[in-house]
């Protein structure tokens, strides 16, 4: 319903032109959301500055989609406060919707409308000027001009994602919220996709993108890792890795991958996982870890200490959480 009363005003007075590079595009604190007994998002807070690409990671059911929906105004937070693009996240969702592009996790364009009709619909609901031109430009950008009359529902999964992105960016949003935009997209298209995201960011677009791909996490300026509705790690990839305090060794050579089973559960080894023929072993206590792998540090295996990857850190975080939960249950 059209809210009566004064038109929503940005909390910050500044106009787009003179907003500095450190302007906080997203600035929220203490967001909570429950579905019945399930506390899906707990005390979520994040600050994202203009032009940054922030990756949103976490296991299935972590609360990523729920959080994005709250930021966009599709779900009403139970509590919390803050601003998105300077608008109150609780009250001004209509203003936020006008300026933010949101790409849903599940394909949500009209499958029984053609590619062009979907784009035209989007252009109209946003009351864009030069609609025909913009739709044409989007079609050209997608390389779908020749297939413009094809029904959106008949596109392959990857193309659906690209069309959805084109629709989400059609109205020239200042902030993009992308929910697993590259799920089911081939590597080549994913690379193009990310190049494009970086291009947009370079021109001042802010992006919050959820993903399950580690390589994509590494292409983000910063990441937030959430699990069970709680933010467990936050910062650039390097910061997250450093903060984990993790030490990682790789073992290469015949049979290295089979060692994982033996090492798991040994004191000091918090994670042992084969990646192809290479075994990753990590732990926070360097002395204990080295002691644990000492018996296996002989030829034909070649051991080397490496910097932990994000994946190592995330698996670590999950294990910590599970251990803490088990402890809490035991107590």
């Amino acid at each position, binding site marked *: *319903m*059209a809210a009566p009363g004064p038109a929503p005003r940005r909390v910050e007075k500044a106009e787009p032109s003179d907003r500095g590079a450190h302007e906080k595009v997203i600035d929220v604190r203490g967001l909570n959301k429950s579905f019945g007994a399930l506390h899906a998002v707990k005390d979520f807070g994040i600050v994202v500055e203009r032009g940054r690409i922030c990756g949103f990671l976490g296991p299935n059911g972590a609360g990523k989609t729920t959080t994005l*929906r709250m930021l*966009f*105004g*599709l*779900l*009403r937070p139970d509590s919390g406060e803050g601003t998105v693009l300077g608008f109150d996240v609780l009250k001004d*969702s*209509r203003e936020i*919707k*006008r300026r933010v592009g*949101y790409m*849903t996790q*599940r*394909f*949500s*364009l*009209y*499958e*029984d*409308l053609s590619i062009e*009709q979907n784009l*035209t*619909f*989007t252009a*109209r*609901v*946003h*009351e864009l000027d030069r609609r025909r031109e913009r739709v044409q430009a989007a079609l050209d950008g997608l390389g779908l001009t020749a297939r413009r009359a094809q029904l959106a529902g008949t596109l392959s999964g990857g193309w659906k994602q690209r069309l959805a992105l084109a*629709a989400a960016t059609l109205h020239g949003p200042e902030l993009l919220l992308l929910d697993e935009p590259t799920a089911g997209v081939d590597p080549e298209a994913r690379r193009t996709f990310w190049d494009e995201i970086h291009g947009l960011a370079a021109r001042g677009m802010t992006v919050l993108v959820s993903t399950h791909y580690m390589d994509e996490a590494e292409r983000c300026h910063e990441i937030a890792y959430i699990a069970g509705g709680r933010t467990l790690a936050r910062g650039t990839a390097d910061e997250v890795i450093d903060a984990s305090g993790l030490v990682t060794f790789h073992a290469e050579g015949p049979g290295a991958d089979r060692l994982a089973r033996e090492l798991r559960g040994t004191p000091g080894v918090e994670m042992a996982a084969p990646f192809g023929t290479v075994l990753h072993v990590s732990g926070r206590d360097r002395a204990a870890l080295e002691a644990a792998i000492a018996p296996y540090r002989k030829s034909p295996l070649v051991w080397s200490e490496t910097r932990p990857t994000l994946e190592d850190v995330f698996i670590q975080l999950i294990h910590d959480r599970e251990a803490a939960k088990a402890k809490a249950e035991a107590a």
Partner: protein
Amino acid sequence: MISLTRTWAVMAKEFVQLTRDRLTYAMILAMPIVQLLLFGYAINDDPRNLPTAVLVQDQGGFSRSVLTALDNSGYFEVTRVARSTAELDRALERGEAQFAVIIPADFTRRVVRGEGAQILVEADASDPSATSGAVAALLQLPQQALARELAGPLATRASGPPPFEVVVHRRYNPEAITAYNIVPGLLGVILSMTLVMMTSLGMARERERGTMESLLATPVLPIEVMVGKLTPYVLVGLVQAVLILVLARVLFAAPMSGGWLALGAGLMLFIVGSLALGFLISTLAKTQLQAMQMSVFYMLPSILLSGFMFPFRGMPDWAQWLGLAIPVTHVLRVVRGSVLKGVGLENAGPSLLALLLFVLVVGTLAMLRYRTTLD
């Protein structure tokens, strides 16, 4: 601020989706035609040789002539000769006979003496279409049945007032709805069937297909969604209404006696009201199946309590009150009034007001129910 562009966006989308669905498209046109033919002819049909039970208490010769005349009319076929009124009643009740004819004991004597002779006919009028032709034939009976007998000394009886009277009792359906009466009812029922059901699926379909999320992700206002989604169906409703009225005229020679303004206003309000109700249902239903169930829940009273199936005045008070809350009741009155009697705006006033009230109340409820979030 309501935006025309955004409303048009939704409208254009609905149009495309509507035409994309060929089956729905076909249903919109096929339903009124098929239903009207089905019901109209079932009703307009002039059934003959209807099973008739007779109870002859008269010993005179004239009763035989009356029975022969009944038989000759083609409408009646004596299938049972009863020996008591109880047996006659049972035959009617069980539907074994459509008519029960009683020729009282002193029939012949009264005819001869000109003492106001009567024969009594009870008609099972629960299906009025089945009996109307036969009842009309009964009215001719007194003139013809005894034409031959009333010659010679009784010739004076033949020229004067009819020699006897046929008393017809309609059982089960005293109002005897005629074929014309069925057209307005059918119009109301077919329109609500298409319009309420089709729009009630609307929001539920968006929710089921997941498109609700991107619809809500746009800045469209609830009222824009509603107007945009419903407008194409206003057209659908008008096409159906015109189709039904034209068919009623062409096939059944319905009188169409004027009152076009009242008819137009009534139909328009009814269409918009039905659509608003469909939209309200669609905001309540989580799935298309639920929407379907709710529409059916609404359809039954529309058919049963509106005066379409059973005469309105024959219903108990509480049912009449319930009936008054149903738009079909009012559109039925408006259409009946204008098509059959040529009633103008002022006489259709109460019904039109009722329809307007329905539009406003249901439309407001639908707007209040519409959620702009996924919660």
